């Protein structure tokens, strides 16, 4: 379980998170929506300890993420993360991209790592691209590679930061389908997204972020189709 308790985060004078609290249970899919600058991506970075926090606590399976004694490299093995930019490693084939972290971080044998990488790549539909260099692939394929690369570490949670925002419109579908598949398989996910249809159909709950606080959080269909907070209503009327 991921537990975010009263988290504050500032960049200089700008307070981006102003006391955010939420829990994500095992097997749950939470979508986070909100305007740009609302702090939704920052929250993911804080959960993954890429960013520090100024106040509050984040627990992942009861481990305090930001405690000095926490081994952050070890913690990140539990938290697969995919970004807006897919960041494929350009000097490696697709298979090597996915096999690298299992091999050097988890110290698996080369054969084991390749086996796991191959499975995850087939899982996201890239089974025929194993020996291709990622720069030869479309953005959608590279983003699926990024998902497979994260999955190859066998994470307990997936943090997805606007993974379709940088994609050409016609490539969004294939990535969302992959995420849908993961959700069906019971992966615990926090998805920061602008895809309202995806948020409504795939996630269990939706949180609406407004200026660093959670303005509304609730059952996905309710928040998207029947929002209670006027701020949420206003936001959704604009993005539709």
């Amino acid at each position, binding site marked *: 379980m991921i537990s975010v308790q009263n988290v504050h985060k500032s960049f200089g004078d700008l307070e981006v998170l102003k006391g955010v609290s939420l829990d994500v249970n095992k097997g749950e899919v939470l979508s986070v929506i909100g305007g740009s600058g609302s702090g939704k991506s920052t929250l993911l970075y804080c959960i993954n300890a890429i960013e520090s926090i100024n106040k509050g606590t984040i627990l992942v399976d009861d481990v305090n993420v930001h405690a000095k004694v926490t081994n952050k490299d070890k913690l*990140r093995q539990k938290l*697969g*993360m995919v970004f807006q*930019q897919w*960041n494929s*490693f*350009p000097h490696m084939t697709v298979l090597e991209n996915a096999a690298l972290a299992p091999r050097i*971080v988890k110290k698996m044998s080369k054969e084991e790592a390749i086996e796991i990488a191959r499975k995850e790549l087939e899982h996201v539909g890239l089974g025929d691209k194993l020996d291709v260099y990622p720069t030869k692939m479309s953005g959608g394929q590279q983003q699926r590679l990024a998902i497979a690369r*994260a999955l190859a570490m066998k994470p307990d949670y997936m943090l997805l930061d606007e993974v379709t925002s940088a994609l050409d419109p016609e490539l969004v579908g294939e990535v969302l389908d992959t995420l849908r598949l993961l959700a069906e398989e019971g992966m615990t996910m926090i998805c920061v997204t602008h895809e309202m249809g995806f948020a409504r159909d795939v996630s269990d709950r939706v949180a609406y972020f407004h200026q660093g606080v959670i303005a509304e959080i609730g059952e996905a269909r309710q928040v998207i189709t029947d929002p209670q907070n006027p701020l949420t209503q206003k936001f959704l009327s604009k993005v539709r």
Partner: protein
Amino acid sequence: MGSLFTPLSWSDSGLILTGVWNTIIISVLAIVVGTALGLIVGFIRSESNKVVNVLFGSLLDVLRSVPLIIQLILFSTLMGAMGSPLAPFVAGSIVLSLYTMAFMSEVFRGGFESVSPSMQTAARSLGMSNWQTIYHIRLPISLRAVFPSWLGVSLSVIKDSALVSVIGYMELLRTSEQLISRTQQPLEILIGVGIFYFIISYPLSYYGRYVERKMAI
């Protein structure tokens, strides 16, 4: 009465080959040491610590802006004046290596900075440590990016090594100068020396093109 000059003969080939060999030795040494130091300095510079950057930056600026020939003469004379004269090979190797380092460090700094921070974040998010990220991601990506520039610097080091002749190192150019003063056949000898420089440099640039083709993805 015999002439004061003796024409070029086959017995001079030993001398010429020594010159070729000495040019190769000092060039390879300067390229290897300059690359190693340049990699370290370039990495430190890309990590953008301001104090370090200003310190290194000005030193590098001096090394790159003062003509090599002046650096060689100054260094060699200064060491002599300070009572610890260095053999031409030693003094020449030190100056040429540092000179090479100054150019290589900027090449590598550019390479390291070409790897986006988000690429590093992506690697770290997979659980890689900082060093693993440097070794498996930043280094290989930046080395590929800078290889053509590295090759260019290396090729000019081979040619610049000719300047070490001014402090008395018996490399190819100095050997040829001696032969010219004895034989008075500058045209033949300089053409020959040019060919030798080409023979030394060409394999490197040929190999470079091969490596570039192999790395092209």
